[in-house]
């Protein structure tokens, strides 16, 4: 696809679906927060203050303050890097590992396929969030292990997707030709098959990002991985939850809204990308 058709298609997709454009703008803002978070934030996200405990949203503190008097807006902004970072690294890892395993299974078939397939079936035999909990507890309670756990529970989707796509293309004419030309199996896979399955895999990845964010936030909501006082959306919602029954809504609402906004934008972007690359799948 040449650059011109791609931009024309992009223009078409955006024109057709304004939501995708909105999603791209929101994601750009979130990316800015993730990169420059600590310098944009109006206050230090960790500084507590005894005089401004649970202050309502005001001009000074647009999102209010939490039970320790910390500015919630600053904490929400600074948390962006950690939340998106966890999700992006988990998705990138499962993308790479899933692509590798799935391609091998799809290309070689036989025992390779059976062993990899069985391993993925075993992961899928668990309720995925529960498996992630078990993995984080076993590996040790840290952010890196949250990423690994999220990577593992996402793996089967990428692996199966790559396997199916490779399997279809294995017997195509151009692959036969490449094989005839004396290319080894790895070379055929890497140079001739994988480049063709990357675009649909990317769509899969962007549709998957939202889910990865929700998973990581869910794990930290129940006290895994991220430790206080580190600002992170899931743990902030959980800290704010205690004050709901006395009506202090801002402490859980704003970090929760940030989560929703991020997940929603990734889902919309995924839908937009899918329309761009494969208009037939539009429902």
């Amino acid at each position, binding site marked *: 696809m040449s650059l011109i058709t791609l931009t024309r298609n992009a223009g078409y997709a955006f024109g057709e679906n304004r939501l995708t454009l909105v999603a791209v703008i929101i994601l750009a803002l979130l990316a800015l927060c993730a990169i420059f978070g600590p310098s944009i934030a109006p206050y230090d996200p960790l500084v507590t203050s005894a005089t401004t405990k649970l202050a309502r949203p005001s001009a000074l503190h647009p999102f209010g303050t939490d039970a320790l008097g910390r500015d919630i807006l600053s904490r929400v902004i600074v948390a962006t890097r950690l939340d998106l970072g966890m999700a992006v690294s988990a998705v990138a890892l499962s993308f790479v590992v899933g692509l590798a395993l799935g391609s091998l299974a799809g290309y070689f078939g036989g025992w390779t396929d059976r062993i990899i397939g069985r391993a993925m079936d075993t992961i899928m035999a668990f*309720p995925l969030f529960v498996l992630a909990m078990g993995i984080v*507890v076993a590996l040790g309670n840290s952010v890196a292990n949250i990423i690994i756990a999220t990577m593992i529970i996402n793996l089967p989707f990428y692996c199966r997707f790559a396997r199916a796509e490779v399997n279809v293309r294995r017997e195509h004419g151009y692959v036969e030709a490449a094989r005839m030309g004396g290319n080894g199996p790895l070379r055929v896979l890497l140079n001739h098959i994988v480049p063709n399955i990357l675009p649909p895999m990317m769509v899969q990845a962007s549709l998957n990002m939202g889910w990865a964010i929700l998973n990581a936030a869910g794990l930290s909501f129940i006290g895994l991985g991220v430790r206080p006082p580190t600002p992170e959306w899931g743990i902030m919602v959980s800290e704010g939850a205690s004050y709901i029954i006395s009506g202090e809504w801002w402490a859980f609402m704003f970090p929760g809204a940030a989560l929703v906004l991020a997940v929603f934008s990734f889902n919309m972007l995924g839908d937009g990308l899918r329309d761009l690359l494969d208009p037939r799948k539009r429902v």
Partner: protein
Amino acid sequence: MAFVWKRLLGTIPSLVGVVVLTFFISHALPGDPAAYFAGPAANADSIANIRTTLGLDRPLPVQFVHYVGDLVQGNLGRSLTTGQPVLTDLLERLPASLELSSFALLFAISIAIPMGVWAATRINGPVDHACRALVTVSAAFPTFFVGLLFVYVFYFLLGWAPQPLGRLNEIAFSPPPHVTGAYTIDALIAGDWPVLRASLAQLILPAISLGLFALAPIARITRAAMLEALGSDFIRTARASGLPVRKILMTYAFRNVLLPVSSVLGMVFSFLLGSNVLIEQVFGWQGVGAYAVAAVIASDYAAVQGFVLMMAVLYVLLNLAVDIFATVVDPRVRFEG
């Protein structure tokens, strides 16, 4: 009956996989259970001692044989926080979780299927738009956040719901005599209407916040399957023969929806069992999920592993039930399988 046996045999590899993976998680990963059991004040000697008593110094295959032997006897270890065997703890709390999940599923199915059918018959009508909005929203909202929003709106702002602190207000009511362990059903059996009312009131918000997320995938698949069925030749023939719309929809088209719905149920169960943990945490529901979260915070290793294993086995069994349901509603599955 032959196909049921075949499905039953088919679950064996899944169960073996579950046991192997749980063993791997609990014994072969770098995290050191001996250090957990020894507690923060341990030195290298006491950790080594505990490792020997737990059998963690033996080769992995030997450990695996012992692990399976323990499982067969129902021994999941002892919880550090409650001091009881993990299996006893889990079985005590399981009815509460099942009660919550079942009500959530019931709520989801009873709304999602009529909604999907209605949306398919009136494309781009209000129900269709509501259906699509729901799918988008449920994909973007964390379950725990929706639970908390409901608490804020229905308890704090409107005052319709009771305080979200568990299964029953134990100051005003005493739990019904134990039969199934689910308060609503036990109260029904005992004929204790005030307790039934009170426990239902506690159940509604958590069940709905959990059910909303199961609702969306079921509604979407019902709508899609119904659309496909309505566009097919046999429906056209039925319409041309002048059959009443009701009969066409309910008898001919709707039957074709059951198979896709049962295939999406597996995913829904995976989701329900996972999100149960979060919702129980939000509403102070004393089920296995809240138990697992408490265990996570206390680094109560055996309890978390027992919970993971129990949920996995439950999930495998639920998938088996879904498979059997699929073969009952659609004979084609029987012949292919």
